[in-house]
């Protein structure tokens, strides 16, 4: 727990430094002509406060006695990482293979392989979800989801509904 606390505080410190560096592109000091701080002032000084506070958390972790408890329950780390990986693969596939392939694949993986559910439940959700998404987003509120290489397959459907 203590190590994780330290790593997260360290990451937040690095993040605030990165923000500060970015903010300096615009003036961060007092702007004499208009009055008030320049465009970079707000993000810069807030990042500075964030840096101070996260440094405080970081330093404090060396003073306190090690607290009991672990950050990750190791048996649970694997499923969490698996789900994150599946999420990343799905988002990466969306613009290439299209949402209507990536999302059913994700559901199939989650329900059948990760969740070990039966075929009936898995297949009914894998088939019903994209149909719902198509009618809700594309037909009703006219928001087209990314289709990638599957785009031509949808031309007849577009012709039918639009």
């Amino acid at each position, binding site marked *: 727990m203590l190590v*994780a*606390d330290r790593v*997260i505080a360290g990451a*937040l410190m690095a*993040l*605030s430094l990165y*923000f500060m560096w970015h*903010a300096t592109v*615009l003036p961060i000091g*007092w702007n004499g002509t*208009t*009055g*008030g*701080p*320049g*465009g*970079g002032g*707000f*993000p810069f000084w*807030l*990042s500075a*406060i*964030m840096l101070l*506070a*996260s440094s*405080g*958390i970081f330093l*404090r972790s060396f003073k306190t006695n090690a607290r009991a408890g672990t*950050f990750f329950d190791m048996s*649970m780390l694997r*499923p*969490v990482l698996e*789900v*994150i990986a599946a*999420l990343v693969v*799905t*988002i990466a596939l*969306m*613009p290439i293979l299209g*949402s209507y392939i990536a*999302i059913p694949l*994700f*559901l199939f993986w*989650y*329900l059948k392989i*990760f*969740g070990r*559910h039966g075929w009936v*439940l898995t297949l009914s*959700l894998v088939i019903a*979800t994209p149909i719902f*998404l198509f009618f*809700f*987003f594309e037909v*009703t*509120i006219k*928001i*087209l*989801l*990314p289709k990638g290489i599957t785009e031509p397959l949808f031309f007849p459907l577009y012709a039918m509904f639009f």
Partner: protein
Amino acid sequence: MELLSHLADGFATSLSPLNLMIVLIGVTAGLFIGAMPGLGSVNGVAIVLPLTFIVPPNSAIILLAAIYYGAMYGGAVSSILLGIPGASTAVATTFDGRPMAQQGKAGLALIAAAVASFVGGTISVILFTLFAVPLADIALAFGPAEEFALVLMAFTTFVGLGGDDVLKTIVMICLGLVLSTVGLDLISGQPRLIFFDQPGFYSGISFLVLAIGVYGIGEVLYTIETSKTAPTVTAAKITMRELGHGLREMNRLWKTMSLGSFLGFFVGMLPAAGATPAALMSYGVAKSISKKGKNFGKGEIEGVAAPETANNAASTGSLLPMLTLGIPGSPTTALLLGGMVMWGLVPGPMLFIEQPDFVWGLISSLYTANLAAVLVNIALIPLFVWALRMPFTVLCSLVMVLCIVGGYAPSQKMHDVWLIAGFGVAGYLLRKADYPLAPLVLALVLGPLMEKSFRQTLIAEQGNVLAFVERPISGTFMAIAALFFVLPLIKYIRRSGKKTVAPAE
């Protein structure tokens, strides 16, 4: 009398067939979302917000408010039937709700929770109706200096009253505010904080992206870890006899319930407090003043009624500053505020003047939502028992899909979907390390207002920083903010003072 005519006009809006249907759909969806362990009102509103594009903006807000309400009712269901709070706001409901269920009185506990929620909701909506206009009138006099001081005060309540680690709270507030500055500078229009030169950052980071990431994806990751063992669902049957018995029992608890409602309403108005502490406080107060105080924790119906009135009253309370001042009283109302801004309805005192139809439609819909929620809640209890048996993997996978698609829909950029995934993982890790997420979301929503009002004041006053303190209203807010800020410091000094004294005894 003017109030009543406004309210009557409002009912004309909220009782239209479309809005009535929307309220019904909203409370039902909210009840189910709230009943699911782990998912509460804030998750429900975050996940459903992109889907509300399907109805006109005014109705969309009514829908979201109905979900908020429904989720508050629903939270009690899993507290009682599973012993796991459906949302953090229903934690106190487990204290007596779970023992009641184990004694075979699950049905009675569910009725008590529903009736108490209805009483809390109704009393607080009446208070809301009475306070809204006077508060909006006061807020009309606010200039940028007052706005800035008010936002600052809202943030300092997290430091002074939030109960989380002070340094971690400050980090989260600053992080949210910095993220809110991404995009174009409000005054000069120049681009700033365009990370890795990604064009997606020019339009800034939407509150919705952060909320879906943190409350959707992050929550699912958190649920995977905490819910591997399937909990046992206690069966509950509702008969008419039991309903009558429940209503008679509740009739004796007016004192507890009205106390809980008032307490909840006023605690709920504070951004840092809200429904969870309100429910815990109401439970504590009821326990100390009740004749049956000793039985609390062993399955006392009063111990279910007290927190349930307070958490519903708090949810209404948190709507008050959001609608009248533009300062949300809870993360869920922060999302409602973000949604309203997205649809071009800017919350604040001017809303009462420019959009009275919308304001009164929304207020009156809270009355209908309350009535709908209590009826749907009691009628659908068998369905909840069934739904709670749904495996987590089914729920989580569908929530993930809704997060991905719902995150893409508003902007139609894959950039936002990647950000959602990033915020999801980051939010999950931060939550595990005890960083509070509510101030982060609130800061992102309020950031633009805070920066704008700060810089407008300084431009108007030619850079005179003292302007914030010299104006009476703004000065008062600043003083309160300063008080909240030093509160933890005073506590810390007193505690460490005691520590050094202790060994001498």
